[in-house]
């Protein structure tokens, strides 16, 4: 028995691991089922669009994952079981084990669901416009980098409070609250400036709040759209993602990429400072 096995037992002898598997499997199934209905209604539903559906529906699994990880990182909420761990293992060992297990697990689930959706949709839907492998790989790479921000953010928010409930609420407030507040402020700004007819895809160029929010590291997740780029989109130089059409540019979201690379280590260091100085 070691820390790795302990974390895996924590996932699989409880509802946590199985619920996560269920959510990602459900996302894959739902993407295919919805795709079938759309295909019946409109025909020629592309397998790439099924992947878009999967990536959107899997956000629910991501939120559940955030709750599970943050409550696990707030292990000091139970003082006595925390004493058991901290008198035998270093804080670095405990935290690193949790991060590696949970984020590897989440990555495996997400990409397994992605591949499952891809395989099934290649059989069921239109494949005349195939995926472009280079762009898919570029999207996966950027998605992995955006994962660093989520790791360090969750580490930081877990280090603020000892209690798991407070930590989870803070994390969700940051992850969900900032985009909601940002969108609201953008809307208000465009209303005030008489620019409400601006298409949403152009808000980030027109709105001052939008331009500022582009630096929010989580915006890098928008590059998920690259994971379903097709050959026709490469030829046209435009990508369609849920009704939004924008230019296919490899430097898309370079601002949140920069802020991710800067903010992630800072958040991780701040979190480590708090964890390492915490008394029980």
């Amino acid at each position, binding site marked *: 028995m070691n820390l790795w096995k302990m974390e895996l037992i924590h996932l699989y002898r409880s509802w946590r691991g199985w619920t996560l598997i269920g959510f990602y499997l459900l996302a894959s199934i739902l993407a295919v089922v919805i795709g079938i209905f759309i295909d019946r209604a409109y025909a020629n539903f592309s397998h790439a669009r099924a992947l878009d559906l999967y990536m959107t529906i899997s956000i629910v699994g991501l939120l559940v994952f955030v709750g599970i990880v943050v409550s696990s990182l707030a292990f000091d909420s139970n003082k006595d079981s925390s004493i058991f761990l901290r*008198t035998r293992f270093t804080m670095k060992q405990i935290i690193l084990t949790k991060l590696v297990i949970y984020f590897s697990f989440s990555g495996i689930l997400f990409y397994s669901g992605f591949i499952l959706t891809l395989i099934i949709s290649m059989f069921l839907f239109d494949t005349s416009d195939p995926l472009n492998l280079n762009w898919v790989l570029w999207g996966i790479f950027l998605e992995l980098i955006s994962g660093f921000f989520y790791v360090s953010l969750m580490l930081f928010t877990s280090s603020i409070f000892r209690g798991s409930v407070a930590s989870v609420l803070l994390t969700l407030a940051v992850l969900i609250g900032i985009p909601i507040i940002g969108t609201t402020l953008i809307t208000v700004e465009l209303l005030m400036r008489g620019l409400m007819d601006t298409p949403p895809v152009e808000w980030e160029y027109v709105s001052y709040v939008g331009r500022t929010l582009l630096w929010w590291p989580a915006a890098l997740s928008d590059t998920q759209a690259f994971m379903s780029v097709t050959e026709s989109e490469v030829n046209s130089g435009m990508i369609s993602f849920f009704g939004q059409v924008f230019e296919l540019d490899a430097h898309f979201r370079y601002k949140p990429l920069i802020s991710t690379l800067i903010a992630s280590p800072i958040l991780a260091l701040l979190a480590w400072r708090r964890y390492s100085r915490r008394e029980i």
Partner: protein
Amino acid sequence: MMPPILTLSGLTKTFGNVYALDSLDLILDSGSIHGFVGPNGAGKTTMLSIVSGLKRKTSGDIKFSIPQNQMMLMPDTPDFFPLLTAQEVVDLARWPFRKEVNVDAVSKILEEVGLQDSADRQVGGFSRGMKQRLGLATALIGKPQLILLDEPCSALDPIGRREVLNTISQMRGKSTVLFSTHILSDVEDVCDSVTVVNKGKALYGGSVSGIRKSAGQSFEDAVLELLLSKGNVE
């Protein structure tokens, strides 16, 4: 003569204006069993937390004559991950000592603390007394040179208490034990020396017999007299 295994000099811990420990001195001889007694809020748990590294001291010195990984703490209310079995918990506690301690020792220690029949049960279903026995097993599995026990008998029935005290007695000469307790008769039964503490200050530190003012005085009366006269216990 072996050096003391632990020496505390002027150990102080404050929480704001409150002195949880106030210039506490303690010398722990190697191989001895030392009792640490005092009323609620005297600073017993705080002292054990600081010595085990879970809290930082405000001032004072702590000297060990052993590596710090040879020290183990059992808290007053041990708790564990509820989904692990007792066997798995003790095996996890063994991990830092896995090179020195064989996996066979896990079953043996569970038998010593009376949990052999519950080895495969998940800890989430354990009573407080069972968790306390399990806590003792996890503290002893690595055969540490210094064992810190915070009220090891508090949740145990009389038979369980006697078994734990016997286990502690058997450690004399093999390990050094520092245990805090409210139960004065336990200290008298098993300890070689005792420190009486109140409001963070040590009122007495020395042999168990040396605390008595007169030949006929019981240990309990001696401690109470000390606490009431010096310690201002209400």
